[in-house]
């Protein structure tokens, strides 16, 4: 039991700080070599190499030698590690250990809807324009050791972390530091080891960027600006930016590993990781990406990024869903995520992705090992876990010469355990950092189990008992009866009590210490008699309390779904087929009009033939008798399938792109397919005059964000006029414009700048700063990009057309355009199309002259007219909305249907491929149960590119599957609760919804208006 003494002698001085050469000493000098030899240990040097019965020698905080038969220096303190394991301590690459809390600046902070916008940066000094670009933050300059946070990390087995301040979109550099409790000077292993980025502007109070796509646009422009600043001497001059510290630092950091956290943002979905990787791809940067935890949902897409991943272990707890009313509001996706999240690390390993593990997301540090083991039960290999916690992070950060394995010359950072480090019964005993010991759980160093002879000696004489110590917290005493003692042992001190006779009140309380295997102490009985006691070990017994093996119940796990929501498919995605629709009423939306009793053949994703009595042996025949076939519905104005909608922080944001934040998992894609929609134009919102670039999509349910896009279409951009852009409902607007007069000037000024920019770019392409905002405007003037312009009243419509004419382009489409009927002749002369609501009005002043006859009049005057939704619910009834023009005005039925088929196709420049039933066009078709303009018509089948994405019969079957899978998961969660495992309260599956904030959107029970921080001018 000598070894115990050694252990504790080390403890006494562990908290003393190391002497520093340049620092004065107060007192008597105490320089030590700190030489230790750990003998007889199983040493896992790295994931590949394990030495048994080996010795590790350290000196001065570093590893001196390791191996079998290593000479033990004479001055070494020997620690016998028989039956013990030694591992390199873990490295956490995603920490903010020792970082000060970033302070919100005055006027910044969370968005206040009633306060004016903060249009410029509050950071004083020669920094860049945007407060969220904190490239100047250097972790090593602000790092200070923090024992309160170091200890829980060390207790998990970590010895080194990469720390950075988690604040801002650019976050400056991170430093590798150890978790020792010493002077900060000794702890910094590498000052600038990485640079950090995110999608979260953090404490910046500046309004821009207010959205995910705005954040991406800002990053993109920053890369360009930095390049310009670096390569162009004039950039830092008075004609350029002057000195720009933010860009300077950013450029300096480009050679470092780039760590991007795409998950640090409310409402983070699976796709954020893909979005972040694409930003890097554009500029030839391969980020190391912080995983969102949902990578298992589409591991193929994740692997394709080729990005190394930092994987968290924060698996959601089971929810308490015993109350069926609570369970009702938890989505299948959330329940499945609970089940599948622990498979995430294994999925990443299996996909061959290089990864490290982090404890960063864990709310409770103690769950680290538990969750890691859960990940292993779900397929993560021990070797991969070991590498992910040691060698891989060290290698990424260029510090493998210092940490990450047990090798000569490296820092003496290692842990001592009772067994294999990941095993459930293993206890972490000590964590050595830089050659200093930190106790974790020393009571487990020596097993105290066994039979002891306890002798008490007091005034009443001597008594002897036999004590059977079963673990550090349980023991029985054999006296007159065999009784259970209350027992606790912490590695040094022992306390216990028992009554020698069963049901006796004479309890004797013992207190003492383990002195090298024998125990000595004081005791007192219930009558106040005091006595001394000693206990000697007779025989060692195996630790029975922990020897039990728990049977692991078979874990049946569901499959992932595409998309990861109800009504996704858990097998392969539907593929294009050959279909022959027989004997339907075919509404061609072409000059052929409505054809009764007609067949349509679909082949290779295209409409192959239209006619009577067609046949094709390879085709699946769909009986269309009594049914109606139309082209798929096209929604010119939609806000579905996107992760943000408005970047309203500035009046001109033509640099933002909806394509940067598509969300192909939005259930509204499926819901709209059920209403016959096949193509949607995803628009930026209407918060500012020149909004963002739009994206046309096809509703291919289940594909990824890239495959969702409508290929080869003319790019568009959203403009907006009127009350929204002048923030009418805000009482403290400070953003220009505040009137329609100002709106006209915003437009004129923007294009005036674009003209100058284009000229400068032509004259000096290298010296001119590339401006993505103006690039888009130049594209407009060169008829390479087209405008859909949110508009209501006739004055602004005319004014905008005149600005466009002045700069030589036209407004392609006026959307909403509720007073279009007043200026239809002018719009026709200008060449604009009109996309409107059927009957909305009276929700704000600019729509008090809106009339349901608008579409009819504009159509009569000769404009190309569409009916749009701007509303995820109404979109699935667009055929009925078009039918309202039959009621309001008396439009012909065929003309009415064209307003949601060929007319929007024309205004989107895709009428050569979609919008009508014509041989050669894309097979985007809807089979209706009834007259397509009737309220009784239901879409029975909706086809995109010859693939049936919605089928009413299949939908009914899927509803049953959804129910069955829900029921299974609810049962499993209830089992967790009854099995005594931790659960959290059932959390309703709230959804952030994105609207254009134009009108009062009626929110469902679980919907939250998501519009970020840009403005509160709802309605």
């Amino acid at each position, binding site marked *: 039991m000598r070894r115990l003494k050694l252990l504790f002698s080390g403890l006494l001085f562990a908290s003393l700080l190391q002497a520093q050469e340049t620092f004065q000493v107060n007192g008597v000098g105490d320089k030590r070599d700190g030489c230790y030899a750990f003998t007889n240990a199983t040493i896992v040097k790295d994931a590949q190499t394990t030495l048994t019965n080996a010795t590790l020698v350290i000196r001065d905080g570093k590893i001196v030698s390791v191996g079998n038969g290593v000479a033990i220096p004479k001055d070494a303190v020997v620690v016998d590690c028989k039956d013990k394991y030694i591992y390199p301590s873990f490295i956490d690459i995603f920490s903010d250990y020792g970082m000060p809390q970033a302070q919100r600046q005055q006027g910044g902070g969370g968005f206040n809807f009633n306060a004016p916008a903060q249009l410029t940066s509050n950071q004083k000094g020669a920094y860049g324009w945007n407060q969220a670009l904190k490239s100047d933050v250097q972790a090593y300059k602000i790092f200070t050791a923090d024992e309160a946070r170091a200890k829980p990390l060390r207790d998990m087995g970590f010895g080194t972390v990469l720390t950075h301040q988690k604040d801002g979109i650019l976050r400056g550099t991170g430093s590798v530091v150890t978790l020792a409790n010493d002077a900060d000077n000794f702890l910094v292993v590498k000052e600038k080891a990485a640079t950090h980025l995110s999608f979260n502007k953090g404490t910046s109070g500046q309004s821009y960027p207010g959205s995910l796509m705005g954040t991406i646009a800002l990053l993109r422009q920053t890369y360009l600006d930095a390049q310009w600043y670096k390569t162009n001497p004039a950039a830092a001059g008075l004609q350029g930016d002057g000195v720009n510290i933010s860009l300077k630092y950013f450029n300096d950091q480009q050679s470092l590993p780039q760590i991007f956290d795409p998950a640090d943002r409310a409402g983070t979905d699976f796709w954020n990781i893909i979005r972040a990787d694409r930003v890097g791809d554009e500029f030839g940067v391969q980020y190391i990406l912080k995983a969102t935890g949902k990578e298992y949902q589409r591991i193929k897409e994740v692997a394709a990024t080729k990005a190394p991943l930092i994987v968290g272990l924060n698996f959601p707890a089971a929810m308490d869903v015993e109350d069926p009313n609570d369970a009702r509001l938890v989505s299948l996706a959330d329940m499945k995520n609970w089940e599948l999240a622990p498979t995430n690390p294994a999925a990443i390993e299996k996909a061959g992705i290089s990864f490290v593990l982090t404890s960063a997301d864990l709310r409770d540090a103690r769950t680290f090992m538990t969750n890691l083991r859960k990940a292993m039960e779900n397929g993560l290999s021990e070797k991969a876990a070991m590498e992910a916690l040691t060698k891989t992070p060290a290698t990424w950060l260029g510090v493998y010469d210092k940490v990450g394995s047990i090798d000569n010359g490296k820092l003496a950072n290692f842990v001592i355990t009772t067994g294999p480090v990941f095993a459930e019964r293993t206890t972490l005993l000590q964590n050595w950092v830089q050659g200093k010991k930190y106790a974790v759980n020393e009571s487990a160093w020596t097993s105290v189990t066994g039979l002891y002879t306890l002798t008490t000696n007091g005034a009443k004489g001597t008594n002897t008992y036999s004590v059977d110590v079963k673990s550090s917290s349980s023991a029985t005493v054999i006296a007159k009866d065999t009784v259970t003692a209350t027992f606790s042992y912490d590695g040094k001190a022992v306390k216990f009590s028992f009554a020698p006779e069963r049901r006796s009140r004479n309890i004797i309380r013992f207190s003492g210490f383990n002195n090298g295997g024998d125990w000595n102490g004081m005791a007192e009985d219930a009558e106040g008699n005091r006595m001394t006691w000693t206990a000697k070990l007779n025989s060692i017994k195996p630790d029975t309390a922990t020897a039990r093996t728990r049977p692991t119940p078979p874990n049946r796990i569901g499959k992932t779904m595409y998309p990861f929501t*109800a009504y996704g498919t858990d097998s392969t995605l539907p593929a294009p087929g050959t279909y022959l629709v027989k004997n339907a009423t075919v509404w061609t939306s072409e000059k052929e009009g409505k054809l009764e009793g007609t067949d349509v053949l679909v082949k290779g994703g295209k409409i192959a033939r239209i006619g009577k009595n067609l046949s094709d042996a390879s085709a699946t025949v769909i009986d269309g008798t009594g049914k109606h076939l139309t082209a798929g519905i096209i929604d010119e104005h939609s806000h579905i399938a996107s992760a943000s909608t408005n970047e309203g922080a500035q009046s001109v944001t033509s640099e933002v792109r909806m394509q940067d934040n598509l969300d192909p998992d939005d259930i509204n894609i499926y819901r709209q397919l059920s209403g016959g929609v096949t193509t949607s134009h995803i628009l930026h919102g209407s918060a500012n005059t020149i909004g963002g670039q739009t994206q046309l999509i096809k509703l291919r349910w289940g594909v990824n964000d890239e495959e969702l896009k409508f290929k080869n279409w003319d790019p568009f951009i959203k403009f907006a006029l009127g009350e929204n852009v002048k923030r009418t409902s805000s009482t403290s607007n400070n953003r220009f414009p505040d009137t329609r007069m100002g709106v006209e000037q915003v437009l004129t000024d923007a294009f005036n700048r674009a003209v100058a920019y284009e000229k400068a770019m032509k004259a000096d392409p290298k010296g001119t700063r590339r401006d993505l905002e103006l690039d888009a405007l130049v594209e407009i003037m060169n008829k390479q990009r087209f405008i859909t312009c949110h508009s209501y009243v006739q004055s602004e419509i005319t004014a905008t057309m005149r600005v466009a004419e002045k700069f030589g382009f036209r407004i392609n489409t006026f959307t909403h355009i509720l007073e279009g009927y007043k200026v239809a002749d002018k719009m026709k002369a200008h060449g604009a199309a009109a996309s409107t609501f059927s009957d909305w*009005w*009276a929700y704000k002043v600019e729509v*008090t002259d809106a009339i349901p006859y608008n579409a009819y009049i504009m159509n009569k005057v000769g404009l190309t007219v569409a009916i749009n939704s701007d509303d995820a619910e109404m979109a699935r009834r667009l055929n009925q909305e078009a039918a309202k023009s039959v009621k309001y005005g008396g439009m012909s039925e065929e003309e009415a249907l064209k307003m949601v088929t060929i007319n929007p196709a024309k205004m989107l420049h895709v009428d050569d491929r979609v919008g009508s039933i014509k041989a050669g066009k894309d097979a985007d078709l809807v089979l209706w149960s009834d007259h397509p303009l009737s309220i009784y018509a239901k879409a029975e089948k909706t086809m995109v590119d010859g693939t049936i994405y919605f089928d009413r019969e299949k939908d009914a079957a899927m509803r049953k599957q959804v129910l069955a899978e829900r029921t299974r998961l609810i049962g499993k969660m209830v089992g967790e609760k009854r099995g005594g495992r931790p659960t959290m309260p059932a959390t309703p599956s709230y959804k952030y919804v994105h609207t254009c904030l134009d009108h009062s959107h009626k929110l469902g029970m679980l919907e939250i208006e998501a519009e970020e921080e840009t403005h509160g001018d709802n309605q």
Partner: protein
Amino acid sequence: MKKSFLYISVLTLLLSKASIAQDDVYPAAKQSKKTAITNATVHVGNGNVIENGTIVFDNGKITYAGAAAGAPSAETTIDAKGKHVYPGIILPASNLGLQEISGVRGSTDVNEIGELNPSVRSIVAYKAESIVTNTIRANGILFAHVAPGGQLIAGQSSVVQLDAWNWEDAAYKADNGMHFYMPSLLARPGGGRFAALLALLGPQQSADPVKAALDRIEGVKAFFRQAKAYHQKDAGKEINLKFEATKALFEKKQKFFIHCSQVKQMLIAIDFVKEFGFDVVVVGAGESWQIADLLKQNNISVILTQEHNLPTLDDDDVDQPYKSATFLQKAGVLYCLNDDDPQNRGRNLVFNAGTAAAYGLGKEEALKAITSNAAKVLGIDDRTGTIEVGKDANIVISEGDILDMKSSIVTNAFIQGRSISLQSKHTQLFERYKHKYGIK
């Protein structure tokens, strides 16, 4: 074309009047001539249909509804051959006349300050000449139940007829309901913007929101307990306006409208039946389809939120809101349909009913849900809701099926026998710009 009749009458009107405000759309004078509608497909509103039917009304009341043979003679006859005739449609919960334009504070009289306003009455703020009204009745909606909005006890509502000079004329059944907006029993999520807002509100907001909501509901119950005790007191007591305002509720002369949609909220609504004996109507009730039988057992009726809604959860049947009414109907709950869309202010009520018809109710049941059922829910079924002898002559004639937009073209409407104008600001602007462009 059938529509020519409508257009000619509109044009005649407009050629004589140059104004495009709707100020010249006058409330109709009292019925002076006994009128018959003949050759019509009469949808009675109780589920029955009379083919080739005749309706006669006199002095504002229906005196005959049945087969052509045996119909009494009339002074004027409207030939409704090929057309469909319906009872006047009822918008069962609305802020019509309390709000002109939602974006303009000055035009809005919906929410009063305070959480206990039982004495507040919507009828006194009702704007009979709202620009919205004429657009709604042009779609066959002749009655609206006008309710105050707010927090907890918001005040009293009234049923109005939509052809009136002022609110006193408009009142069809004054003060027929008391409105309780039940707080949400769902914990809201943390994170994002919401968290920032919570932080601004301070730590007191971090208390369990469900518990806080239950406490507030308990506060409402406590109020009614005290009100009940107050009513037992002798005459000569000091008048408490809030307690006084609850008298009709306890006497069952008024219904208790509880605005809520969550299952747990509706389960709590049962308390108000059990403890206070109120006639409870649940308004909104998006999730009521799950507990239809319980509502039936407790005689709770429902004003269902519009069909044109998205499902609550991704997992739900994509058509769940379209189908919810059928659950209530099958369980025998007294329910009616509503259109609470803020962009249309109720004029698509018929189409919401059309959707419900398509997804399980069938046309006549769907019609009941916006006529006779609504009348029962609002307590006006003794006077309207069906085309039956003795009822007020509240009648709508449509060119075709009124529930289907492609044929829902209202040509005539009568409120208490008065032939009302179907013109509105919309038709007037339509004519003005047809004129501009020379559209015939």
